[in-house]
């Protein structure tokens, strides 16, 4: 029960902190506007049933956009409550001023008001804002896994292309929040949150390599993850200051970095062959020299 409520709260809070400024991603629009649509995906129906079973007053069902609109508007502002009928996602946007709350407790408080529980519940999250960011990271990872499982198109790509495609898919999930993403990064970098954020990133990298079909289990495993971690993080940072339309520069930057990495791998391979050849050559001439010395 608590978990479901917390999850719902966080998913709504995630929506509430998205930026209203530079909307460049096509689905950012639907994300921000369609609170109802998104919360349906976290399955409010099961929650509803659960609370019924335990003889408690259920949450207002949010599977219908009209309902969602009336609950949210009545809990957030008292003036905009008479506009429940026929509210599509677009209309909904216009009625309520979009507020950028960022990855903050205020977003969580406002999220809890939206799903109709007391904001006091925010006090049960031990690391407050970090819980919000971590929820978002987990959610994105899950969406990425779903995308990998369903994506036939990925399998036809070369490994290097597949990697940059996957990193791109993952980073695109952050575009609606890009103006507030530095804040999320700073929360992740706070000492008490580092273990979790590190682990989440490691899981992400694992998932990407797994999707590429990597099954290495030697030293290579660490090298590969470190290299990909570097690429991912640096692209993430690059994206923060990218003002090109649809983050075109970011994706070009990403492709270059992946190419560099594969080139580096090739270079290392070549250097290894060269060393072996040289070693072999040296070895035979050395042997010849030694033989000559001892044959005397």
């Amino acid at each position, binding site marked *: *029960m*608590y978990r479901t*409520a917390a999850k719902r709260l966080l998913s709504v809070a995630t929506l509430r902190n998205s930026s209203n400024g530079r909307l460049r991603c096509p689905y950012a629009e639907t994300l921000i506007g369609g609170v109802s649509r998104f919360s349906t995906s976290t399955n409010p129906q099961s929650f509803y049933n659960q*609370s019924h079973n335990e003889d*408690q*007053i259920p*949450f207002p069902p949010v599977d219908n956009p009209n309902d969602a609109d009336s609950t949210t508007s009545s809990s*957030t502002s008292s003036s905009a409550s008479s506009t429940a009928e026929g509210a599509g996602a677009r209309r909904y946007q216009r009625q309520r001023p979009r*507020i950028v*709350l960022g990855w903050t*407790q*205020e977003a969580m*408080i*406002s999220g*809890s008001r939206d799903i*109709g*529980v*007391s*904001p*006091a*519940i*925010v*006090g*049960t999250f031990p690391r*407050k804002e970090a819980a919000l960011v971590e929820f978002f990271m987990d959610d994105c990872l899950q969406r990425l896994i779903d995308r990998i499982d369903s994506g036939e198109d990925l399998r036809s790509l070369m490994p290097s292309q597949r990697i940059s495609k996957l990193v791109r898919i993952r980073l695109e999930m952050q575009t609606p929040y890009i103006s507030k993403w530095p804040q999320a990064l700073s929360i992740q970098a706070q000492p008490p949150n580092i273990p979790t954020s590190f682990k989440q990133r490691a899981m992400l990298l694992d998932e990407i390599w797994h999707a590429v079909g990597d099954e290495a289990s030697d030293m290579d495993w660490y090298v590969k993850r470190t290299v990909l971690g570097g690429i991912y993080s640096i692209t993430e940072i690059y994206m923060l200051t990218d003002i090109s339309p649809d983050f075109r520069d970011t994706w070009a930057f990403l492709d270059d970095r992946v190419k560099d990495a594969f080139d580096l791998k090739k270079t290392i391979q070549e250097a290894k062959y060269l060393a072996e050849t040289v070693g072999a050559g040296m070895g035979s001439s050395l042997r010849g020299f030694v033989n000559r010395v001892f044959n005397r």
Partner: protein
Amino acid sequence: MALRLASRKLRSDISPIRSSASLLHSHATSFGYREVREEEKTRMVSNVFSNVASNYDLMNDVMSGGLHRLWKDRLVSKLNPFPGMKHLDVAGGTGDVAFRILETITSIRRRVRQSTFDDYLQDETRIYVCDINPNMLNVGKNRAVERGLGEEKSLTWVEGDAEALSFEDLSMDGYTIAFGIRNVTHIEKVLAEAYRVLKRGGRFLCLELSHVEVPVFKDLYDYYSFSVIPALGELVAGDRESYQYLVESIRRFPSQEKFASMIADAGFQKVEYENLVGGVVAIHSGLKI
């Protein structure tokens, strides 16, 4: 060593009383180590608090070495108050917890001035201080005036019984009871009432003197509570009996685990507790969903 012996002797003095107590009639309840009839307990507790009201804050500081301030700060930081909150502080006659909550909310409001927390939310903030004892409430009211909060609309002082609250169902975001639940006659009734008045998502927090299980520290603590505290009470407040009751009632209060399960039985979810100073006090929390 002498200390250990002293406390052991003390415990053996006590145990005969304990065992005879269990033979008494089941409608009896505990008043410290004495068994009294249920209706008498309320009156006797009320006498204790009428006696100690005037020196209450001074004695708290003396007995805990000022630590009770930190404990209350911790309680409020766990509560995580927010503007627009409806909060009920039970057994909080002197307003200690209520003032802290109010301060936190005011500081949040100053910090996030421009965002969603508009003034109307601040106006909606209500902190109800409920206490069964009018003497304790008067202490709190006077302190509010001293702090310049005499005219504060957010604070409401209510005389009422924790076992039968006068508030509506689903009306509170938070419920705190600091150093109070030990003194009630039926803990279960208090928990049930707390559950009733809380909204879904509302939280129950209880700060209470609890049980120390750390070996050597336990002996020290026992010695301190049975020898030093009543003497202090006599010296500072001129009232040995009331403070004798205080330490005895702490020992009769259920252990941390037991009390946590009682909270869970009342219907709360995510029941947790945190020991402070090795268990001298514990903060229990529960969430209503």
